[in-house]
């Protein structure tokens, strides 16, 4: 428990550093939200007036203090453009983002771990080579290209699945699932490749351990032996899966753009393109916090796989 409390508090300095870096990066980069809001036919006076109205003419340190003050009061701010609170924007995108993350990772784990174990168990055989060729291909081909191919094949030609859009779970399980199949398969290919390779490597290493040799010598069957092997190889796999979940929650811009899924990734990119400072700052900070939190969960999960670990 003390470890958990210590870890939670250690997040504070990390978040402060992230907040300062994010704030400086986006405010010092070229671009001006006032000019974008005003539009193509706005005069310099129009833009200057807008600057003042949005508080963008204040010194940078003052803008930071105002933002940090609001943040400490739990106010993430309001989008400069849409005037919609950032919390609302985030809430709108939470369901699609979590849905994609859960389905993608679920699919990846279900496919990748057995594939990796199989490849390790049959190391050097044609099965192993086939799995590795698939893993290399799935990892190397750009996500957007696979996305377009999936759209062309399953949406445009076969017309089995929609090209774009996200249907909320409240509209029914099948419509929801239907809208997620292509984006999740698209994303899962990358994670399947990654987890398969990781599983193969770690399981292969464990299979050469003395206790596995002993287990085999005692006449234990293939499945019980593999069960021991996978359990002992679980820590690096869990780390990879955890980092994958964090990345998925942080947003998967290309897939969200190709399939028009209103996730957090598109929210951030859109905000970056428009220099919507409150949205970028708050969402990136929350993404960083999520990342740190998931890492903490991964660390804690190690005890499940190896009771010898003590914090």
């Amino acid at each position, binding site marked *: 428990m003390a470890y958990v409390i210590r870890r939670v508090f250690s997040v504070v300095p990390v978040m402060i550093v992230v907040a300062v870096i994010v704030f400086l990066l986006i405010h010092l980069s*070229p*671009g*001006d939200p006032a*000019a*974008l*809001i*005003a*539009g*193509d*036919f*706005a*005069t*310099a*006076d129009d*833009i200057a*007036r*807008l600057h*003042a*109205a949005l508080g963008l003419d204040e010194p940078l340190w003052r803008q930071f203090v105002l933002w940090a003050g609001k943040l400490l009061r739990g106010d993430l701010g309001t*989008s400069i*453009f*849409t*005037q*919609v609170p950032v919390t609302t*924007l985030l809430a*709108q995108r939470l369901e699609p983002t979590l849905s994609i993350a859960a389905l993608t990772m679920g699919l990846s784990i279900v496919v990748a771990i057995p594939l990796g174990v199989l490849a390790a168990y049959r190391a050097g055989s044609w099965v192993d080579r086939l799995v590795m060729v698939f893993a290399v291909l799935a990892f190397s081909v750009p996500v957007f290209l696979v996305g*377009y191919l999936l*759209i*062309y094949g399953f*949406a*445009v030609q076969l*017309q089995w699945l*929609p*090209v*774009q*859009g*996200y*249907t909320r779970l409240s*509209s*029914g399980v*099948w*419509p929801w699932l239907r809208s997620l199949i292509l984006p999740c398969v698209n994303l899962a290919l990358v994670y399947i490749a990654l987890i398969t390779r990781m599983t193969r490597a770690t399981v292969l290493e464990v299979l050469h351990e003395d206790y596995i040799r002993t287990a085999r010598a005692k006449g234990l069957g293939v499945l019980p032996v593999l069960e021991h092997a996978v359990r002992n190889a679980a820590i690096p796999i869990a780390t990879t899966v955890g980092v994958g979940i964090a990345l998925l929650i942080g947003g998967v811009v290309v897939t969200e*753009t*190709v*399939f*028009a899924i*209103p996730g957090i990734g*598109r*929210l951030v990119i*859109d905000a970056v*393109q*428009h*220099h919507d400072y409150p949205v970028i700052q708050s969402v990136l900070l929350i993404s960083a916090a999520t990342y740190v939190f998931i890492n903490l969960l991964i660390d804690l999960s190690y005890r499940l796989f190896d009771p010898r670990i003590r914090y």
Partner: protein
Amino acid sequence: MKKRLLASLAAISMTAACALCPGAAMAETKTLRLVPHADLKVLDPTFTTAYITRNFGYMVYDTLFAMDEKGQPQPEMVRDYKVSDDKKVWTFTLRDGLKFSDGNPVTAADCVASLQRWTARDNIGHALSAAGGKWQAVDASTFTLTLERPFGPVLDGLAKVSSYPAFILPARLAKMPADRPLTEVVGSGPFLFKRDEWVPGNKVVFVRNPDYKPRSEPASGLAGSKAPHVDRVEWVILPDSNSAVAALKNQEVDMIEQTPADYIEPLRKESGIAIGVMGRNQAYMVLNQAFPPFDNAKIRQAAAHAIDQAKFVSAMGYPPDLRLDHCDTFFICGGPNETAAGSAPYAKPDIALARKLLAEGGYQGQKVVVMLPSDPVYLNAATLVAIQALQDIGMTLDIQAMDWATMTARRSKKAAPDQGGWNVFVSSASEFNVNSPLNNTYLAASCGNTLPGWPCDKELDALRAQWIAAVDPAGRKALLDRFQERAYQVFPNVPVGQFSLTFAALKSLKHTDRIWGVPNVWVLDK
């Protein structure tokens, strides 16, 4: 017995299958799904000149006058109007029964407050103020415009299509401070905005406004009846063109508002898809006249002599039938103010003359900063052609690539080009933003608060004022010619080509031939 059992099973299966169909409960609702050209960010059409917000305005607000498909202003919310013999007093009376979406009637006081807000922002509004224009409510349905001097384009101003249309909103909102965009949307237009379904970056939803009171005349352009044929309109934001086209082919959307140029020909070959013209656009090269070398008219003339419009529109990727190889006017070829006055020397590029003018203008090879946008693609292509043209006449260029957002911010900076400023950029505008000396704000040369490029020419500005004040058609035409002749001498900007923006729609969508200038979706039916 067996047959009956099978029939019952089939009926149950079909019911179960239908329960899984999205939108089964709304089978009777006609929904039009349109991919707009951009995401809706700002909801206040008198706050930003962004076209997407203007289009949003046309969905939810109404205007006193509107342009018909011939480009003529027609009464819309106004029942009748009269003008005094000296053309200084205009009296307008509203139609009966007009109602805002909050249930309140539209009154003359609402119109006056809305017009005051519009006057403060719009360039025609500014010109009206300069002519001493004052709006005043007479009774609940009548209001007046009193001028100190005659003002030619009063009705054109009230029917203005673009940046900024004179939308009418409740007085309580129109009187809100203009330094922040309005977030409450209360209009009397054909649709209601469904804020609860709005997901910025993803979807904007409108439903038919039950309180909208259409005119009896049929729809024409933006005028006439705007009674919608569909119950619901969804703007589906699809930032990826490839996905948008695939969604159209898959019939998940009914229409793409702006077809990327390189998709036009492939889509023309699709049997179920029609390509139509949304409106004409003019591309132009803006030269910063606040700093050398383009503070010298001879250097600007030299740049204009380097321009071959055919190369620009071709590079942008528009098929031959959607582009003009050359257009003589600053005011849109085929538009109401087309004129060739002053254009003859620039009908064809003349590199030798351009080099001579550069020398006469004292250009000695100093670096010219060209802002090259990486997006949108067609402006990237047009800027690359401009770069080649300027290099061909011997200019030394400092080409700085940047994204559109950065360029938008940078072009408003008046700093010297070597200190974060710029010399040249290329942009484009809808015909409604360039089709008259008043609408074409990049031609405004009033030596003060003008658009980037900051042109300054008192003669051109005086001619503009005279054109605005002129009320007889012959006098206006003569002044228009003189205005353009002067523009061809001082070049507040350099037109580089005219092309048509196209939409792509399912052939099953009806009346797409009546789309005019902006997505006037109330004419469409499924």
